[in-house]
C-alpha cells in the first residue's frame, strides 16, 4: 500500500483537494441529518393507530333539515349499518384516529383547577366502539348499553365512566404497579370519571401531537348535525362495501354523505406532509450525492489528465494496471475520508443543534456510519472510471517529449 506517499502528495496539493473534501463534508452533514429526519418521519408514519385500518371506512353525515331529529336519525343509521351483510360493527363518533381534528381535554388524578392535567383526545361513542375500532380491551370491561347517554353543546355534564388507552392510564398513574381499573380521574377540573376499562392502543386524531397515544372513550353520543360514522367491515370487504354503504345512507334525503374514505386513505391524508417531506429530502440528498459524485469524477479526470506522464513513468517503473487503478482509488479514499470525517463531526454538531432547537430525535448511532459507507462507496464508484482510464495509459508516454 502506498498510503504514506499518496497522503504526503495530497498534503503538498492541499488547495486542489480542499474544495472536493469540503463538498463531501457538506453532503455528509446534510445527508446524515436528512436521513435522521426521514427516519423520524418514517417511524411516526409506521406507528399503528390502534384500529383495524384495513377494514375500516369513515364518513361524515351532515343533516341540513332544520330541527331534524338527530337522535332518531343516528339510531336508524347505526341500525342500518350494523345490519348490513359485510359490516362487522359501526359507531357514530365525534372523531377517530388520524382524522386531524377532534376534541381534547385534560385529565388529572386530583380535582381542582390547580392540579397538573394530562392531555387526552376524547372519543364520544357507545359500547360498539371497541369492536368497531378493532382495538383490544386489555383490562376492565366495555361500556354497558344502558349507560350510554346523549349530549350536546348545551349539556356540560360528563359521563361518570371512561375507557382509557394504556399510555394515558400509565401517564396518569406512573407510580402505580397494580391494575388501574377502578381508579378515578377528574375531567373539566372537578368531574370524576371512573376508569372502567383500558385498551391497548387507540391514537388521538392528531398524528403530530406529542401525546398522540392518549385517548379516552366516553359512553356518550353527541346529537349534532355533523356526525362521523366509523364502520368496520368483515375482513377483505372494505372496498366493495364503500359504495353500498354510501348508497344505503344516501337514501335518507335529509342529509348529505361526504368524505367517504377508507382508513388507509385517512392515513395517507394524515401523513401527506410527512410523505412530501420524505420525498423532498430523499430527492435533495440524492441530488447532492450525485453532484458530489460528479465532482469527484471531474477532479479525478482532471487529476489523471494532469498526471498522464507521471502515470506513464510509474508504469515504466513497474506499476501494473491494477496498481495504477489502486493508486487513484486510495487517493480518492483519503480525500473522501477527510471530507467524510469532517462531515461526520459537522453532522453530529448540526444534529445536536436541531435536537435542541427543533426537538428532532437524536441521531441513531448507526446513521453516521451508514452515511460514511455510502459516501465512501459513491467516491470509489465515481473515481473508478477515471482510474480505469489512468490504468490504460501506456508506459511509453514516459519517453515521449511533451
Amino acid at each position, binding site marked *: 500500500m502506498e498510503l504514506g506517499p499518496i497522503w*504526503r502528495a495530497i498534503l503538498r496539493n492541499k488547495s486542489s483537494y480542499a474544495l472536493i473534501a469540503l463538498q463531501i463534508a457538506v453532503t455528509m452533514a446534510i445527508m446524515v441529518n436528512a436521513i435522521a429526519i426521514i427516519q423520524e418521519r418514517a417511524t411516526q408514519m409506521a406507528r399503528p393507530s390502534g384500529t383495524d385500518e384495513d377494514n375500516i371506512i369513515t364518513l361524515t353525515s351532515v343533516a341540513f333539515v332544520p330541527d331534524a331529529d338527530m337522535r332518531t336519525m343516528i339510531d336508524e343509521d347505526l341500525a342500518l349499518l350494523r345490519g348490513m351483510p359485510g359490516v362487522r360493527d359501526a359507531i357514530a363518533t365525534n372523531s377517530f384516529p388520524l382524522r386531524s381534528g377532534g376534541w381534547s381535554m385534560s385529565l388529572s388524578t386530583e380535582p381542582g383547577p390547580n392540579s397538573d392535567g394530562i392531555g387526552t383526545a376524547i372519543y364520544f361513542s357507545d359500547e360498539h366502539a371497541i369492536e368497531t375500532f378493532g382495538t383490544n380491551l386489555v383490562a376492565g370491561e366495555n361500556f354497558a348499553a344502558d349507560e350510554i347517554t346523549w349530549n350536546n353543546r348545551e349539556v356540560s355534564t360528563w359521563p361518570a365512566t371512561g375507557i382509557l388507552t394504556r399510555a394515558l392510564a400509565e401517564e396518569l398513574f406512573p407510580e402505580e404497579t397494580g391494575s388501574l381499573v377502578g381508579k378515578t380521574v377528574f375531567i373539566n377540573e372537578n368531574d370524576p370519571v371512573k376508569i372502567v376499562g383500558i385498551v391497548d392502543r387507540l391514537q388521538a386524531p392528531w398524528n403530530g401531537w406529542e401525546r398522540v397515544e392518549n385517548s379516552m372513550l366516553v359512553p356518550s353520543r353527541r346529537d349534532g348535525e355533523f356526525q362521523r360514522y366509523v364502520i368496520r367491515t368483515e375482513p377483505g370487504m372494505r372496498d366493495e362495501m364503500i359504495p353500498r354503504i354510501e348508497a344505503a345512507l344516501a337514501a335518507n334525503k335529509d342529509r348529505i354523505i361526504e368524505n367517504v374514505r377508507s382508513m388507509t386513505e385517512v392515513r395517507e391524508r394524515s401523513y401527506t406532509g410527512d410523505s412530501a417531506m420524505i420525498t423532498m429530502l430523499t430527492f435533495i440528498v440524492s441530488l447532492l450525492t450525485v453532484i458530489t459524485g460528479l465532482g469527484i469524477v471531474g477532479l479525478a479526470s482532471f487529476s489523471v489528465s494532469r498526471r498522464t*506522464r507521471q502515470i506513464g513513468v510509474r508504469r*515504466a*517503473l513497474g506499476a501494473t494496471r491494477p496498481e495504477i487503478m489502486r493508486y487513484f482509488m486510495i487517493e480518492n479514499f483519503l480525500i473522501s475520508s477527510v471530507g467524510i470525517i469532517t462531515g461526520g463531526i459537522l453532522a453530529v454538531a448540526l444534529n445536536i443543534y436541531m435536537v435542541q432547537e427543533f426537538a428532532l430525535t437524536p441521531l441513531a448511532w448507526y446513521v453516521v456510519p451508514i452515511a460514511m459507507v455510502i459516501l465512501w462507496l459513491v467516491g470509489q464508484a465515481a473515481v473508478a472510471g477515471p482510474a480505469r482510464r489512468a490504468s490504460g495509459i501506456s508506459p*511509453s508516454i*514516459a519517453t515521449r517529449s511533451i
Partner: protein
Amino acid sequence: MLQMNNVSKIYRTDTVETHALREFSLKVEEGEFVSVTGPSGSGKTTFLNIAGLLEDLSSGTYELDGRDISKLNDRERSKVRNEKIGFIFQSFNLIPELNIFDNVDVPLRYRGFKAPERRKRIEESLELVGLASRLEHMPAQLSGGQQQRVAIARALAGEPRFLLADEPTGNLDTNMADSVMDLLGEINSTGTTIIMVTHELTLATRANRNIFVRDGSVSDGPGDLQLAAVAG
C-alpha cells in the same frame, strides 16, 4: 542478454501506416555499454521503448535473458520492467509531488520490498549518486544534474541488470553531462548492461559499442565510422 531479430514496429492510423522499425536486429551481451545514435525520427526511441517493454513490437522476436517477451502479459511485462530494467529519461521524470526519498521508493514499492529493505536500498543508491543528504528535498529544489542523479538512483535502487538511458544528458549542461556520463561508466564497470540512446556522438564514444540507426534499421556503416571520426 538482449536479442532482437527482425523486429518491426508499425504505427497505424486510419489513413497512415508508419514503419518506425524495420527488420531491426541487435544482440547485446551482458555487461556491455552500447550507445544508439541516429538522426531524429530514425527509430531510436521506438527501439528503446520496445527494448524496455514500454511498447509491443509488431513482428519479429525479442528475447531478454532468454525469455520471449512477446509471450508475456501486461502484468508479467510490468514485473520484468520493475525487476530487470532501470530507466533513465531525458527529462528525468521525477514525480514532482514526492520528495527524493519517495521518488526513489516508487519502483521498490511495486517490487514489494519491506520498508527496512527499501530504506536501505534508497540510502545506498542516493549515496552512490552523491545525494544522500537530500532525502527530504523536493525535485524542484534540485538542479537538473541533481535531478538526473536522483533518477539514476531510482533506476539503480532495484539493482537491475539492464539500464536503458534515453538521452540522459539531453537537458544538462556540459559539466553536468560529463558528471552523469562518468556515473554511467562507473555503473557499467560494476557489470550492469547499459543501452544509451543519444544524438551526441561525443557522448556515444564513452560507450563500448555504437549502434547507428537509420530509417528504423541498424545501419551497417556510419555508426562506428562516425565514432571513429569523432574520436580521431
